[in-house]
């Protein structure tokens, strides 16, 4: 193991150490905890860049990746079948090592600023709740208690109270993601995967005592955390079954031994269900691929398991950036890109396999489906949440049509500009919250349910927070695919070009989604920044914390430039200038079978430019040219009518799941399994036997009293006398029982000793 390979192992370590140090040592000191966490992630960034630059200068990295492994879980009979745990850097991991530590570092720095101020409402039970928090950090005695419409006693709670713990948890989160990125096998990947699952639960529900005044039905952070964890858990278990199958079929989980092994890949092409005619075209690899893909459906929030992601916005905004850009949702896509040879088992350049069709179908559908929902959202973060789901759909669809290099490209650019957008939205929210407090001091009255995330409470923020506004605009244009100067354009265009060449149906769906993406992005920018402020809070909004602005500027730079590494080599002028698509050649080497290079074509290029620009134009016409006045309704509402209600309510998917899955299974578990079978039948039989025996005993007693009485009286009385003298044994005194027990035991030991040694 030379130094460089050792470095690969070290990459996930600094944040893990930061987690432990903060939790065990510095948790009482916010500043120190900030420093520990940021230093750790910057250290990791440095390590990653060292490895990254070494990796990109290595010839044929795909054939000879950096690797270091040891045995972790010895399983089965021999060394060959035991689980090796190893770290590896191949081209795909190198890409991850470029953008994950970059975005994570920015998010860490941003968090130190974001988590430094703020309040939220919390419920106080039992009337005099204040003594409950006596002495606890972050208790806020300065605010009075109010009673909301649901009759709850509420006070303002200091949102910064647990900042040190927050830094510790996001450090663990980053560590999980980096572990997943450098893993050289599916098991280690899964470990990182589950670390993130747990952290997402803890971080989404981080403000676990938060409630929303006057909205008792609204989901709270606590429940959002549980929902996220449970939904992804369902998917993880299916994925685990896939891993178990893959392992028992191939005897290994190492990426290299499966993906870089022609014999193995060929073996996976045999039929999974040879005895079932209808399913005989499914290959073993295809079915395993589907099971693994299910894991990605949960983690990357694809339809139908996407519902956790919008609710995950209940977490503090840096968490949203972390989960929805840099780490968790990227992990799902990363995994299916990594597993592409398995997912595409039996695919040799033409004729998509059933597995690929399902992957492409779900991805494309999700891309369009959630783009339509995003159009009708009021909450600034919810728009971004649905846009994330939609963009992930692009990547999944790209994998499904075999364009995994394009998927990896979009994964990278999306992580950068989506982190930028989320942090921008957090900056906006903070600014409006500050504005609310300022306005409060100036005597303006606010309802307790004033929502600082509702875009209809904003407007005119361009002049108040220019850094945020400019960077948000850059991020938004990248998301929309604004031609030539944004990273999003190049990556999205590559997916669309691939779809155009291989799967026209997918292209049509993705193109419509691209139009909607550009439209809702412009709507969001218009509602937030354009026109005049619609509330006093927006009027007095401020945000000047450099810890929040610096990451925005850095990411905005990458949101423009990161796309230039993947420009098609035949693109007029630029292709030659930018090194003939280095990204494609680099990542393409990650697999045994190098992907073909798509011939350059103007049709999809022009189509995608037209689509993006027209979406932006429509949005500009509605929301920027004529900015909304205070209290004015969304013009879209009149335009779409009942469809708008349907979209605003997310197609009632949550209600459907509640009605079709959660309630029936609770009913089944309680009424049928527990009360009917367990307590009814099984205990019923037992109690019946007990009663019968008791009944028979009483009948025997009657028989005894009436029939055998008389003549046998003398005998009975004699026995009675005997029992009288024995009954003292049954005294109910535990000491006496104990004496008997010990005596009996001693007797046994005595007999034993006697038989053994004395006889």
């Amino acid at each position: 193991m030379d130094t460089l390979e050792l470095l690969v192992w070290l990459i996930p370590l600094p944040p893990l150490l930061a987690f432990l140090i903060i939790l065990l040592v510095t948790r009482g000191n916010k500043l120190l905890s900030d420093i520990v966490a940021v230093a750790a992630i910057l250290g990791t960034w440095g390590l990653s860049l060292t490895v990254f630059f070494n990796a990109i200068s290595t010839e044929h990295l795909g054939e000879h990746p950096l690797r270091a492994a040891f045995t972790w879980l010895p399983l089965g009979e021999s060394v060959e079948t035991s689980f090796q745990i190893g770290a590896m850097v191949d081209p795909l991991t190198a890409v991850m090592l470029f953008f994950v530590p970059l975005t994570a570092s920015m998010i860490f720095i941003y968090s130190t600023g974001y988590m430094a101020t703020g309040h939220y409402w919390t419920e106080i039970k039992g009337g005099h709740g204040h003594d409950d928090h006596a002495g606890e950090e972050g208790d806020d005695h300065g605010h009075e208690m109010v009673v909301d419409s649901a009759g709850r006693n509420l006070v303002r709670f200091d949102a910064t109270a647990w900042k040190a713990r927050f830094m510790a948890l996001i450090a663990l989160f980053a560590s999980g993601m980096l572990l997943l990125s450098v893993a050289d096998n599916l098991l280690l990947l899964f470990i990182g995967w589950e670390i993130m699952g747990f952290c997402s639960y803890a971080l989404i529900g981080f403000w676990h005592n938060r409630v929303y005044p006057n909205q008792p039905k609204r989901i709270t952070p606590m429940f959002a955390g549980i929902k996220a964890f449970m939904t992804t858990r369902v998917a993880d278990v299916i994925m685990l079954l896939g891993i178990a199958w893959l392992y028992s079929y191939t005897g290994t989980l190492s990426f290299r031994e499966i993906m870089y092994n022609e014999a193995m890949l060929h073996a996976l092409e045999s039929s999974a269900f040879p005895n079932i005619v209808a399913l005989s075209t499914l290959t073993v690899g295809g079915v395993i691929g589907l099971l693994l893909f299910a894991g990605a459906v949960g983690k990357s929030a694809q339809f139908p398991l996407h519902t956790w992601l919008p609710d995950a916005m209940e977490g503090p905004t840096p968490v949203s950036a972390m989960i929805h850009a840099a780490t968790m949702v990227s992990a799902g896509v990363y995994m299916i890109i990594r597993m592409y040879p398995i997912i595409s088992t039996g695919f040799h350049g033409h004729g998509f396999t059933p597995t690929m069709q399902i992957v492409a179908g779900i991805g494309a559908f999700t891309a369009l489906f959630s783009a339509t929902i995003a159009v009708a959202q009021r909450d600034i973060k919810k728009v971004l949440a649905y846009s994330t789901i939609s963009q992930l759909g692009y990547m999944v669809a790209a994998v499904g049509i075999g364009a995994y290099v394009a998927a990896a490209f979009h994964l990278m650019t999306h992580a950068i500009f989506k982190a930028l957008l989320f942090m921008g939205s957090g900056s906006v929210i903070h600014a409006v919250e500050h504005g609310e407090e300022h306005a409060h001091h100036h005597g303006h009255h606010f309802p307790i349910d004033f929502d600082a995330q509702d875009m209809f409470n904003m407007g005119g923020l361009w002049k108040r927070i220019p850094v945020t506004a400019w960077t948000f605009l850059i991020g938004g244009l990248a998301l929309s695919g604004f031609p030539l100067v944004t990273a999003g354009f190049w990556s999205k265009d590559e997916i669309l070009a691939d779809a155009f060449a291989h799967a026209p149906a997918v292209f049509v769906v993705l193109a419509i989604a691209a139009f909607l993406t550009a439209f809702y992005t412009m709507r969001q920018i218009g509602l937030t920044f354009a026109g005049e402020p619609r509330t006093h809070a927006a009027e007095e909004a401020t945000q000047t914390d450099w810890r929040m602005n610096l990451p925005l500027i850095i990411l905005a730079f990458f949101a423009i430039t990161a796309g230039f590494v993947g420009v098609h080599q035949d693109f007029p002028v630029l292709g030659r200038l930018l090194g003939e698509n280095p990204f494609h050649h680099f990542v393409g080497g990650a697999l045994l079978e190098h992907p073909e290079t798509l011939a350059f074509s103007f049709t999809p290029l022009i189509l995608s430019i037209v689509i993006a620009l027209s979406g932006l134009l429509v949005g500009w016409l509605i929301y920027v040219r004529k900015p909304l006045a205070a209290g004015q309704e969304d013009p879209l509402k009149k335009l779409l009518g009942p469809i708008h209600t349907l979209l605003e309510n997310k197609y009632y998917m949550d209600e459907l799941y509640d009605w079709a899955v959660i309630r029936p299974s609770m009913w089944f578990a309680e009424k049928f399994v527990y009360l009917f079978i367990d307590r009814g039948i099984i205990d019923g039989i037992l109690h019946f036997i007990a009663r019968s025996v008791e009944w028979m005993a009483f009948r025997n007693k009657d028989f005894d009293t009436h029939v055998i009485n008389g003549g046998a009286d003398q005998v009975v009385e004699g026995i009675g006398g005997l029992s009288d003298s024995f009954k003292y044994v049954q005294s109910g005194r535990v000491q006496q029982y104990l004496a008997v027990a010990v005596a009996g035991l001693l007797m046994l030991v005595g007999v034993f000793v006697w038989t053994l040694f004395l006889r």
Partner: protein
Amino acid sequence: MDFPFLTVITFIPVLAAVVLFLMPDETKLDPRADMARITTLKTGYRSVAAAATFISLLLGLWIFFAVNQFYNSGETSLFFFEDGRWNWVPQLGIGYHMGVDGISAPMVLLTGLASFTGVLISWGIDDRPREFFAFFMLLVAGVYGVFVALDVFLLFFFYELAIFPMYVLIATWGWKVTREYGAMKLTLYILVGSVVALVGVIAMYFVAKDAGIADMTFDMVDFMRARDAGVYDRTFDLPLGLGLATFAKTWFPFIFIGFGILAGIFPFHNWSPDGHVAAPTAVSMIHAGVLMKLGAYSALRVAVMLLPEGAKTHLPWMVFLTLINVVYGSMIAMVQRDFKYVIGFSSVSHMGLVSMGWATMNLTGMTGAGIQMFSHGVMTALFFASVGMVYDRAHTRDIPSLGGFWHRMPVVALAFIVGGLVSMGMPGFSGFVAEFPIFVGMWQAGQTIAPYYAVIAIISAIGIVVTAAYVLRIVQRIFFGEFDPSKWHDEITDVTVLDKLALGILVTWLILVGVFPSIMQPMVSAGLEPIARLLGGA
């Protein structure tokens, strides 16, 4: 091995019971006049119990690492640290023979962990502590005895020795509402099961004797000789002219399920939640943590190991029972209002995975089951300890009434969350190291035994999802949320240092095995290898 480690481990608790019995009785003293003396005496009782369990724990640790070392150095011996074999009742072929292998050594360690931490968290028991600890010591001795006995009759002897004090402990110190019902239900179920199994073992003994096995005794080694001679694969005439039957195939279900009752196998699991809930905390810990493993362990050791042909015939259908265990137990756990019943039913679910592991009949799955016995034992002891700590302060276990206990007892909340992660099978904790091989084993069995094994693996995955649901429900309802101080009569205080120590010990092992599975996995695997080979799965 000259020093009789196993005998000492087993009989130190007995010695402690005797010492406790000889100590002065504090109830004879006048509480007004001799308060100081009473306090001293009670501390004395507790210290005796703690010392005894601690010495056994240390010796158990020594055994654990020594056995590990033996396997690593390539020793092929079947058993280690043997004591005996000595004749006990030679007329009946009953002897005294103890020894451990890779399967039982972790169980000995588990017993040590659960009993020592059990004593620590029972420090506060004020009602006749002398008797409580004395019975507790007898119980512990019985449990140790079963795991180290190599004579089948001796195994039964200790098995019953464990059940008797259990009854007294539950009926006397248990939860007032259901303690008599729970104790009676538990005792009857287990007694019936053990009697059935005992009849089977006696039949095995006589069949071997009739077949002319020289010097046949109840010793495990003799039974193995009889097995290898093919005695149990012979056929015999059924009465009433019902035709021919094979001995192993006829008796296997009785012996396996007879012991399996104590492992909570469906539909004979119902004693377990009621019994756990009725029991005092330390007894629940031993009971769910260790006693249920007696059933699974004995079922493997006697039924599967000695009657492999029967196992090959019957385990392929019994795997359906284990599936019901896993899914059914977790579903019931999800809808309980009583905190302790949730944990009680979760044990039914998790023990189903152990039986499922046996039913895979291959080394991978069985090794998973062997680790699951240890992992579940430590985890459940941790769960019941946490439940007890909450209950001792709140005096209720009704989930909707509780909330916010994290504010008052953060260490308990943290420990419970670790236990919860283990129970969900999170990587990095022992639960994953146990459950993942079981699933891999099920897939392998799907290819070698019958395709429906794979289907069962898929359905049992529901159990894992539901487990996450009930664990999160408890974490959120009991430990998070807002604390309502006006609800409780007494001040809710943090747990004592001893409680924290106990939780710390248990948590350490859950993480240790999860992060370094190689301290346990190879030995369990090596211990199971001969059995798996008999079943054709190694």
